[in-house]
C-alpha cells in the first residue's frame, strides 16, 4: 500500500471516529460542567469540571433503586438465557423425531418481532398477574432464538470423539453439557451474555407498558421520567445518561473480542 493511500485511509477513519465520538464527548463534557445549557456559543473544552451533577442526579432520582431493578432483571435474563439457550442448542445437535418441526417452529418465531405482539403480550401478562413485577418484565426475553442457533453451531463444532470419550468415562448428558460443551464454546457464551444483557438493560417499550409503580421502574423509565419533570434544564440529566450508559459499555468493551468472534461464527454457519 502506498504512503499516500495510507495517509488518506487514516485521515478518513479519524474524521469518522471524531464524528462518532462527538455526541459521546459532548454528553460527558456537559455532565461535568453543566454549562452551555444556557450559554451561547458553547465552549468546546470543559471549563472548571466537577462531579457535582453526578451527586445531584444520584440523590434526585433514587438511583440505587432504579439500578437494582435494572440489574436484577438483567441478571435474571442473562442467566435464563444462558441455560435455556444452551440446553435448547444442545438438544438440537441430537437426532430425534420432530426435530425438523422444532426447527421450523423456531425459525417461524424468529420472524415474529416482539413489537408485533405487544398488545396480547400485555393482556397475557395481566392475566398471569405479573404486571408491575420483575418477572413480568423479564419473561418475554428469557430466551433469544439467535443465541440458540449460535450455541447449536458452536456445539456442532465440538469434536465427536471428545463427547464419546466422556460418555465412556460415565459422564451424564447434563455433565457433558456443563463440563465439556460450555467451556469449549466460550465465544458463544460471551455473545449470549453480551446480547442478552445489552438488550435487557436497554429495553424500554416493554417495561414502559408493564411497569405501573415507581418502585418497579427500571433505568430507562427513570431516565424518561427525569426528562419529563426537568426537561433540559440541568446538567444532572446528562450525568444520569452517562451513569446509565456506562454498564452496557463496560460489558461490551470487556467482552468485545469473544463477542465479535461469536457473531462471526454464528453469521457464517447459521
Amino acid at each position, binding site marked *: 500500500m502506498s504512503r499516500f493511500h495510507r495517509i488518506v485511509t487514516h485521515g478518513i477513519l479519524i474524521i469518522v471516529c471524531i464524528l462518532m465520538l462527538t455526541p459521546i464527548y459532548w454528553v460527558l463534557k456537559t455532565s461535568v460542567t453543566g454549562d452551555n445549557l444556557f450559554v451561547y456559543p458553547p465552549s468546546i473544552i470543559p471549563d472548571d469540571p466537577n462531579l457535582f451533577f453526578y451527586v445531584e442526579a444520584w440523590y434526585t432520582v433514587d438511583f440505587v433503586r432504579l439500578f437494582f431493578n435494572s440489574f436484577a432483571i438483567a441478571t435474571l435474563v442473562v442467566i435464563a438465557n444462558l441455560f435455556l439457550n444452551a440446553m435448547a442448542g444442545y438438544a438440537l445437535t441430537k437426532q430425534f423425531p420432530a426435530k425438523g418441526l422444532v426447527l421450523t417452529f423456531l425459525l417461524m418465531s424468529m420472524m*415474529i418481532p416482539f*413489537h408485533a405482539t405487544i398488545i396480547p403480550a400485555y393482556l397475557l401478562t395481566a392475566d398471569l398477574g405479573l404486571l408491575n413485577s420483575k418477572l413480568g418484565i423479564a419473561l418475554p426475553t428469557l430466551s433469544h432464538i439467535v443465541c440458540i442457533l449460535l450455541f447449536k453451531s458452536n456445539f456442532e463444532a465440538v469434536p465427536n470423539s471428545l463427547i464419546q470419550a466422556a460418555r465412556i468415562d460415565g459422564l451424564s448428558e447434563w455433565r457433558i453439557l456443563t463440563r465439556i460443551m460450555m467451556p469449549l464454546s466460550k465465544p458463544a457464551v460471551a455473545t449470549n451474555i453480551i446480547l442478552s444483557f445489552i438488550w435487557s438493560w436497554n429495553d424500554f417499550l416493554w417495561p414502559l407498558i408493564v411497569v405501573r409503580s415507581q418502585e418497579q421502574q427500571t433505568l430507562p423509565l427513570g431516565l424518561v421520567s427525569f426528562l419529563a419533570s426537568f426537561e433540559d434544564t440541568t446538567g444532572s440529566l446528562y450525568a444520569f445518561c452517562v451513569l446509565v450508559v456506562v454498564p452496557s459499555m463496560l460489558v461490551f468493551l470487556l467482552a468485545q473480542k469473544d463477542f465479535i468472534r461469536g457473531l462471526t461464527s454464528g453469521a457464517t454457519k447459521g
Partner: protein
Amino acid sequence: MALLFRKKRSRELVFIWALLLPALAVYLFYRVIPLVWNVVLSFSFWSPGKPAKFAGLYHYEEMLFYDDAFWVALKNTAVFMLGTPIAIVLAMALALLVDQNIRGRSLYRTLIFLPYPMMIVAVGIVWRWLYNDSVGLINYVLRSLGIIDQPIPFLESYDFAMASVMVAAIWQIVGFFMIIILTGLQNIPAHLYEAAVIDGARAHHRFWRITLPLLRPSIFLCVILGVIASFTSFDLIYTMTGGGPGLATELLITYIYKSSFTLSKFDYAAAVTVVMFLLFLALALIANRLAGGDAGKVDIAD
C-alpha cells in the same frame, strides 16, 4: 437387548424434550399465542373488562379508508426505512477501510462500534439536545461555518424532524453494520483476490465481481436488521420528538402504542399491528430470497 435399547432411547428422548421445553414455552407464550390472539383481537370489538364481539373487517375498513394518521404513520415508516441503504453504504465503505492492513484498525473498529451498546433512550436525549436550536452543537457548528444564518429548530420543524431522527438512528447502527460486513469480508477466501490480480483485474473490478457478490448474505442481514429497526424504533421517537411535530415523525409502532396504551383502543391497534406484521414479513421474505434463501443467516433479529 432390544428392550434395553428402547428404554435407553426413550430416556434420551425425555431428556431432549426436557432441554427444549423451557425455551419453546417462552416462544409459545410470548410469540405464537400473542400473534394468534392479536389476529383474533383485530376482528373483534373489545375493550378491557367487556366481552368481545365479532367485528368482521370493521377495524380494517376504518384504518384503510377513514384514518389519515395511519397512512401518515405508514408513509413515515417507509421513509424511515430509507435510512437503511444509506447506513449500509456507509458501513460498507468503513468496513473496506478498516479491513486494510493499517495500524490501529482494531481501535478504529471499537470506536466506530461504540455507539451501538448505548441505551437508545439516552441516545435520544443526547441527540435531542445536539439538535437544540439555541444551545445545540449542530446549530452552533453550522452557524460558525456560515452555512446558515438563523438557528434551525430541527426537531420542531416539519421539514427536518424525520431526517434528524434518521441521522441519530444511522449514527447508532452504522458500527454494527460495519462489524457484520467486516466479518463477511474476512470470510472471503484470499485466493480469489490473488487469482484476480494474476488475471490483471483492476481494483474496482475486483470489488464489483468478487467482493460485492460474496458479501450478499452480510448485506441482506443488514437489510433485515434495518427493516426491523424501522418497525421497532420506538425509543428514539419517544424521547426525541414524541411523534411530532404534528404527525411528522409518527411511525407505525408509536401509533400502535398511542392507540392502545393511551387511548385504550386495543382492538383497533391490533388491526394496525397485523398490517405492520404482514409488511415486515413481506419485506423479510423478499430480502431473504435475494440473499439466497438461507433463513438461518437472517438472525440477530430481536
